[in-house]
């Protein structure tokens, strides 16, 4: 994935816009998504191709808006970012449509006590429409970012404000009553429920704000952070006054997340922080400290919060009698039920999958959000699951490549940090549902049902697009032949 030896010198081809490449890629994406939609429609009993047609038209229109915005405001942006994001977003809508159809219109689904097939109870009847609306909002934010933020370094001015906004967004649900901020069925308090519109998860945006804030702070202080300080046990520690502000912000955010029982996001957040300090200072000791702190934190939270300890137990022994009692009386807790159903789903998919619309994803609780990857694994098989992972990998690779190419340290740090955060988020949730690591519920970027995650993902793509546009833009040409002061066009 990392491009070898790119160095600071971008290759010649980097100065070409590549918007036509992007367009042809997008046509491919539209074809793929339309095919997936048709596939679902033909597999299910209750075919509704007319609605699918409308969904497709809106989807194509909105993505084309993003494409045109890139042509106008970021012509040198990386040509893969938008198509890859659009593909994931489109497939996510297809899967939510598929899950929405479960138990409706004569399609197979779970059965209630009276023997009647029912839809997935946690998936509202307007889920598909809402997901498309969120896509529109997401692309709207994407375009707005490109229009208003012409130069990424502008963000550096708002380092402290962004930090405050980030902490405020994270803190908000913790101070709201559980009736508004609690997620049903879990101990987490991470959302703001808006009656009729679903809910907002402020932390999704807080992650972006804090990443930008960290980047600004670390760039300003990177020299003192890496040079001044004391050496303790062979590890260089920075001075308190340099490290203080960011450590406070970080600790406050982390504690708030833990108090909101949002372990997954705190893990991503922790990783983001460590990676950014490492990129800024190039000191390996930070990785060691970060890793040690992470392991210690994991153990402490596992001891402090029973539900975190239970996650570890489920991870290690999903089929044990306490985690998955066999045929228990109704009401018995089955902590491993969701994880195991996800695994069964993946196994049911096998190499090539059951085909879209032919699996039984409804067995897995919350399959439309945290466990949507297992639904893809079941219906598209190992081939589809690997393809999705590679798409994520490609987005991350484009982001890291941008970070390598760009000269400005702030932009470099921001691109590197955001790319790593996306990778980490995919690792935490996909690794969690496939039992590579203990499960912590966070959203699957672009795929999961829910607006905040989708909109935040599109903003992330917008930032990367803006950064890559800056990185690949040709250097300003001199407009006079000679002279002491060169006058250049900055467009």
């Amino acid at each position, binding site marked *: *994935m*990392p491009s070898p030896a790119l*160095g*600071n010198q971008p290759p010649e081809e980097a100065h070409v816009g590549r918007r036509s490449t992007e367009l042809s890629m997008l046509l491919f994406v539209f074809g793929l998504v339309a095919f997936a939609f048709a596939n679902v429609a033909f597999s299910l009993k209750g075919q509704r191709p007319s609605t699918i047609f409308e969904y497709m038209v809106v989807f194509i229109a909105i993505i084309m808006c993003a494409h045109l915005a890139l042509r106008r405001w970021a012509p040198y942006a990386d040509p893969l970012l938008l198509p890859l994001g659009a593909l994931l977003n489109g497939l996510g809508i297809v899967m939510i449509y598929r899950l929405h159809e479960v138990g409706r219109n004569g399609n197979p689904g*779970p*059965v209630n006590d009276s*023997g009647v097939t029912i839809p997935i109870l946690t998936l509202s009847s307007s889920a598909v429409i809402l997901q498309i609306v969120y896509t529109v909002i997401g692309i709207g934010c994407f375009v707005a970012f490109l229009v208003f933020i012409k130069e990424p370094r502008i963000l550096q001015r708002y380092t402290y404000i962004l930090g405050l906004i980030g902490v405020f967004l994270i803190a908000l649900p913790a101070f709201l009553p559980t009736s508004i901020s609690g997620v049903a069925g879990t101990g987490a308090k991470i959302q703001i429920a808006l009656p009729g519109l679903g809910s907002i998860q402020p932390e999704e945006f807080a992650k972006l704000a804090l990443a930008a804030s960290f980047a600004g702070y670390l760039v300003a202080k990177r020299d003192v952070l890496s040079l001044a300080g004391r050496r303790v046990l062979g590890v260089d520690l920075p001075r308190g006054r340099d490290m203080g502000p960011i450590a406070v912000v970080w600790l406050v955010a982390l504690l708030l997340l833990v108090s909101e029982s949002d372990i997954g996001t705190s893990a991503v957040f922790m990783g983001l922080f460590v*990676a950014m300090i*490492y*990129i*800024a*200072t*190039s000191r390996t000791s930070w990785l060691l400290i970060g890793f040690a702190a992470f392991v210690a934190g994991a153990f402490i939270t596992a001891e402090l919060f029973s539900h975190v300890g239970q996650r570890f137990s489920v991870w290690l022994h999903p*089929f044990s009698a306490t985690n*998955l009692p*066999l*045929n228990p*009386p*109704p009401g018995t807790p089955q902590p491993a039920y969701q994880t195991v*159903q996800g*695994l*069964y*789903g*993946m*196994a*049911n*998919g*096998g*190499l090539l999958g059951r085909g879209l619309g032919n699996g*039984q994803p409804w*067995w897995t609780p919350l399959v439309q959000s945290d466990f949507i990857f297992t639904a893809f*694994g079941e219906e598209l*098989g*190992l081939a589809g*699951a*690997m393809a999705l*992972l590679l798409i*994520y*990998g490609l987005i*991350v*690779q484009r982001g*890291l490549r941008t*970070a*390598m190419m760009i000269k400005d*340290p702030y932009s*470099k*740090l921001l691109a*590197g940090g955001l*790319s*790593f955060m996306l*990778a*980490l988020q*995919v*690792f935490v949730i*996909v*690794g969690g549902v*496939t*039992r*590579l690591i203990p499960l912590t519920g966070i959203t699957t970027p672009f795929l999961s049902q829910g607006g905040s995650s989708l909109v935040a993902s599109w903003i992330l793509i917008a930032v990367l697009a803006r950064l890559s546009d800056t990185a690949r833009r040709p250097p300003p040409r001199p407009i006079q032949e000679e002279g002491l002061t060169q006058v250049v066009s900055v467009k």
Partner: protein
Amino acid sequence: MNRALKRISIAVLVMFLLLLINVNYLQGFETSSLSTRPFNSRALYEANQYQRGNIETADGMVIASTTPTNDLYKYQRTYTDGPVYAPVTGYDTIYSTTGVEHAEDALLSGNGSQLAFRNFIDMITNKPQKGATVQLTINSKAQQAAYQGLENILKGTNRVGGVVALNPTTGAILAMASYPSYDPNLLATHDGTALNKNDEALLQESPSPLINNATQTTLPPGSTFKIVTSSAFFAANATNNPSTQVYSPQVLTLPQTTNQLHNDNGEVCGSAGANGKTTLLWAFSQSCDTTFGNIGMDLGGGALNHMADAYGMNTNLNIPGVTTSPSQYDLPPSLPTTAYSAIGQFSDTVTPLQEAMFAAAIANNGTLMKPYLIQQVTASDLAVVSSTTPSVLSQPVSPTIAGNVKTMMEAVTQQPQGTAFAFNAANENGLVIAGKTGTAQNQLNGVSPNPDAVFTAFAPAVNPKIAVGVIVQGGGYGAAAAAPIAVSVINAYLATLGIR
């Protein structure tokens, strides 16, 4: 900063590689172990989307079928005459299978590799997948008679019993009944809570109805073991025959011990008097324990053990669809125990299946055919997917010896001194049944004050069609409790052949 970025890129690469390896492991290597886990709702759902194949008897009676339902699983398994056929069919619950349901699960469910091509054709022609039909060797009349016989005598007791009938020339199991039994319909319910409750109730019952007493419960063979002792006697010396005079005292004093071996009621054996000899035929038909105790000591435990093995004892039979326990003949450690083992006591134990195999081997001129239950499996398009060809299990005795034993077994029912003569004279109606009774002292088990009743027989004596083994725990005399069941099974089966 680029150096750090490159390292971060490598970390990202490792993370994605781990994810890729993990999904490969899950979906490439773990699929079968995950989908066969109990309570995998997806696999259960899948299995019940298709119509499971029927199980039929040899005479075409459907004993396990499916009916469409409206719940999550589209088909409900239904068993006809559940308790009668439970040891044969086993059960198919939403979680597990036993018996034939287990042995032929792949074909019954329609997922077997032999059906893959047909399923593919069905998929193309848009026909629903359907399981294959399993046809058993069971004869419904014989099975019904066997179960009825056991129920009449054992109902309301805490004793067990089992009946097995074999076709001596092929080894096909014609009847396999066990008492007490259970209704597999109770376990076929799709309601997990009800299933749990019913299962729990069956597990609480004693004696357990879930054990197939026809093939899993071993009890002492008693005097029926004299078939084995006689076989060994004939095999030891070619001049030995049923007319050979054998030492038959009224009381056999055993060496190395103060124990004495008596005949059943301490009577003398035929014309032998207190300390004389009589013919082997007489001793066999009157079932003189002293004669065979003495013969056993002469032959030695090794010869008896060898012959018992040849009759299929001490062997795991591995019959598809049938759970069996091996019948046992332990090498006796001393002369007195050898004498006891020769008359089916000491530690000898057999299943009703083994009893039927004794008679079947003699009926088939000394060749013992391997018992089998599953005749053939036919796909939904009626093509035969698999069928069982009869095979030889062993040749315990030569045809000559088999003829000798047959002569003696006929005497048991046909001559006045025969232990089953009185009973047979009342039921004969012109049919000659060759048999051997057993009345096994087994009171120490505390189940019943009476001995276990054992009977092994084949009929007709000329050109035999059926061999039956019956054991009724605590039934008393073999001729009184076990023989009537055997005769009713024989009559029921021969009637279907048009012989009676």
